[in-house]
């Protein structure tokens, strides 16, 4: 029902014409779910914007054919396109909360679309809007009609967005990263809902994502894009079991999943043997009954409720949970950025919970506990060169002179694989992966004993994530560090960690050795998390 041939999209920027999509062609059958997978900059979103003709004024579309159900999308008048959008072809986007008008009742927003496409009159619009809400399984739709977006959770907002998109019974739904930023369980619920709706209405769908694993669970066919071109197309199973193009192979390898080990994330030619790390008996960190109470304008929130666990020297402990579970608060307390309300933290047998976080920067223990942050861009001072960022802890916490610091910086850069000529660059002149390396180099410059990693690869492309994860594994072995790895992604955690702690709403639901938690979880919540993680098809030849 959709036929695209030789689609080109260029953008007119100050620096000249930039090609975002180069000469791509593909078809979509009725009732099919097509996945477009690619990393950032691959042109996948631009393709869908071009189909809907909602590009900026600076975007130029050139296509041989761009035909939907016999309608030429490329040459259609804007008036025709406005009729098609919402009625024939609908689109849902990332960030459901910001996709809704914050000062307009959600029911009215649905009505707007219904009335625009003459699917309702003034008199029955409200009724139909309530029905639309019911169709996306929102509880109590009659009252929810009057809600504003800020009163809804992220998952509910995404359902409302779906309701708006499907209100007029379109034949094609384009979903652009609809679950990025949502919790894993919410992600599964939303994706299941979308799939149900698509199947029950006999719709076709284009599902755009960077997560190959997610695409494999919901899509019939997959298109892989890189730098604006299509590198491979095929049935989902084939893409995974017999990827032909080297880039596809790289992506498939890099997608974390249960049966892989960390080295197999990387392309075969890069591999050198993983150095096994040693877990000693000595406990480097012990947390006893840690609690954190936040007193707010609207009442107190108990972010962390009396949690206890241990980390042994050389061990990698994974802290897993969804948003609001308290894992970020815990990591902030352990890194001594904030104080606990109750409880004790023993680092190398010393109680550091007694030391107030305000003064901790002057304490010698500061250099033993370091942190790698989630967003590589935000965690670097925009005015500091890479060299300055890495040498910052050395300047403050050691007595080294400039030459010694320079040597140490070079050493750290080599350890993390950062090319030395990049040291004089500012953050905005570095790529995502390079910035991540700078952040890691800064953290290990002091050879800390405990490294806390707060979702360090969450904002990275999957191929770069593979590289960074392997780097972290190597560093752990070389420098004998212990890790606290905080993440929402169980697939990643089980690759890296020896011990897993599962948190929910401030308490530890379950903790234990990795392979036990994964293969034999005791608690139902843990099982829920495991089920919700996308599971790509098993490879026939797992090393």
């Amino acid at each position: 029902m959709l036929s695209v041939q030789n689609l080109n999209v260029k953008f007119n920027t100050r620096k000249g014409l930039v090609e975002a999509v180069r000469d791509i062609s593909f078809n979509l059958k009725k009732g099919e779910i097509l996945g477009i997978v690619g990393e950032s900059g691959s042109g996948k979103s631009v393709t869908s914007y071009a189909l809907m003709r909602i590009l900026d004024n600076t975007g130029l579309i050139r296509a041989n054919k761009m035909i939907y159900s016999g309608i030429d999308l490329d040459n259609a008048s804007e008036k025709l396109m406005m009729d098609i959008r919402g009625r024939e072809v609908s689109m849902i986007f990332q960030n459901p909360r910001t996709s809704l008008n914050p000062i307009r009742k959600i029911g009215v927003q649905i009505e707007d679309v219904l009335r625009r496409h003459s699917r309702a009159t003034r008199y029955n619009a409200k009724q139909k809007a309530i029905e639309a809400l019911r169709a996306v399984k929102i509880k109590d739709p009659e009252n929810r009609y009057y809600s504003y977006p800020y009163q809804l959770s992220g998952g509910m907002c995404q359902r409302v967005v779906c309701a708006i998109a499907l209100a007029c019974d379109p034949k094609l739904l384009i979903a652009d990263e609809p679950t990025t930023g949502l919790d894993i369980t919410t992600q599964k619920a939303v994706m299941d809902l979308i799939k149900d709706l698509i199947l029950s209405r006999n719709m076709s769908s284009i599902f755009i994502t960077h997560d190959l694993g997610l695409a494999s669970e919901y899509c019939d066919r997959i298109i892989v894009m890189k730098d604006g071109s299509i590198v491979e197309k095929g049935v989902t199973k084939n893409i995974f079991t017999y990827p032909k193009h080297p880039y596809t192979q790289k992506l498939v390898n890099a997608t974390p999943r249960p049966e892989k080990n960390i080295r197999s994330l990387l392309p075969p030619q890069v591999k050198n043997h993983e150095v096994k790390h040693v877990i000693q008996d000595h406990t480097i960190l012990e947390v006893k009954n840690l609690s954190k109470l936040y007193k707010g304008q609207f009442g107190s929130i108990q972010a962390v409720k009396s949690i206890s666990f241990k980390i042994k020297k050389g061990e990698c402990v994974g802290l897993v949970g969804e948003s609001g579970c308290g894992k970020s608060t815990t990591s902030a307390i352990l890194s001594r950025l904030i104080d606990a309300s109750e409880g004790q933290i023993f680092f190398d047998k010393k109680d550091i919970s007694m030391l107030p976080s305000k003064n901790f920067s002057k304490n010698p223990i500061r250099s033993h506990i370091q942190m790698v942050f989630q967003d590589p861009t935000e965690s670097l001072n925009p005015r500091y060169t890479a060299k300055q960022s890495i040498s910052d802890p050395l300047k403050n916490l050691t007595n080294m002179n400039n030459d010694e610091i320079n040597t140490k910086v070079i050493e750290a850069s080599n350890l993390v694989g950062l090319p030395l000529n990049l040291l004089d660059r500012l953050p905005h002149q570095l790529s995502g992966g390079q910035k991540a390396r700078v952040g890691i180099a800064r953290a290990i410059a002091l050879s800390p004993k405990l490294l806390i990693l707060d979702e360090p690869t969450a904002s990275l492309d999957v191929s770069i994530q593979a590289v960074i994860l392997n780097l972290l594994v190597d560093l752990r072995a070389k420098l004998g560090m212990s890790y606290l790895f905080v993440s929402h992604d169980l697939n990643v955690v089980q690759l890296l960690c020896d011990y897993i702690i599962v948190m929910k709403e401030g308490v530890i639901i379950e903790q234990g050795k990795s392979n036990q938690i994964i293969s034999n979880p005791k608690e139902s919540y843990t099982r829920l998390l495991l089920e919700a993680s996308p599971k790509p098809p098993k490879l026939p030849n797992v090393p």
Partner: protein
Amino acid sequence: MKNKFPKLHAALFRSVQSIPVLIGVVVISFLLTRALPGDPAVYFAGAAADEQSINEIRIAMGLDKTLYEQFFVYVNNLMQGNLGTSLSTGQPVLNDLIKRLPASLELTILSLILSSLISIPLGILAATRPDSWIDHLCRFLVTAGVSLPTFFTGILLIYIFYYILGLSPSPIGRLDFMYIEPNLVTGFYLIDAAISNDWETWIGATKQLILPSVTLSLFTLAPIARMTRASMLTILSSEFVRTAKAAGLSNGKVLFSYALRNALLPIITTLGMVFSFALGANVLVEKVFAWPGIGSYAVEALIVSDYAAVQGFVLSMAIMFVILNLLIDLIYMIIDPRIGFESK
């Protein structure tokens, strides 16, 4: 209360916040005018007075007491609506202000309406048609507008339209001397003349109003246009507008129900700020056009150290502004459904 009526709670909270500001305003205006040079007792007593009569007058005016005592007397008087007596007019300051306020308000309000009528549509058009001639015009107007000295533009306009073109009447105040003032109802000549069906006076008043209000509106045009354009640009590139477009909503619907309503919020706040600037620029415009408003009242009072009048002026301007800001914030709270619920 917080949970049952969050908006009411937020509104009350905001209103209560004005109180310390009002107190501060009263204190500052008191201090400022007590620091004015010149000894009012001497001035009031006259040129031929001797030490003793000056002293008697000083005691009668309460100037012999300590600063604290004077402050309490001052606040006491304020509560009773007594702002003192003007030295130059001999009338209670409150009466003077009330008599002259409508002239300033008529001018300011008319200018604000005029400049909003031009700048808001201009800003909207500039945002919806980026890089077009209208966008460039808007940006040019904004940059030039904030560079114009109000008094200079007033004088320039007088020169062009009165002296050279002869289109405008001479700038000697609200009404040329061949007209009689309309019956006093509101103090706003345009309204009063219309009420008494005195259309000749109405036209005369309008003619006098044109140049000064154009001068003042040129001044306020720039910040309103700039904020409108900026706010619209931000909203138009936001994700919910993208969703609306992707759902095929008509351009009109997107512009008015989705974009404009959301963009209005910061524009309203800007209007409050602009009103404050306008109150200040009023002083200058009134001087250029010999407008009998409270601005020129204050300038005359300053020159003769008429401290009660100056104090009354500063205080009343500040109070007007605080109340205006409170009103704007309350309007904001009504329009934006999120306020009162989101923790800051």
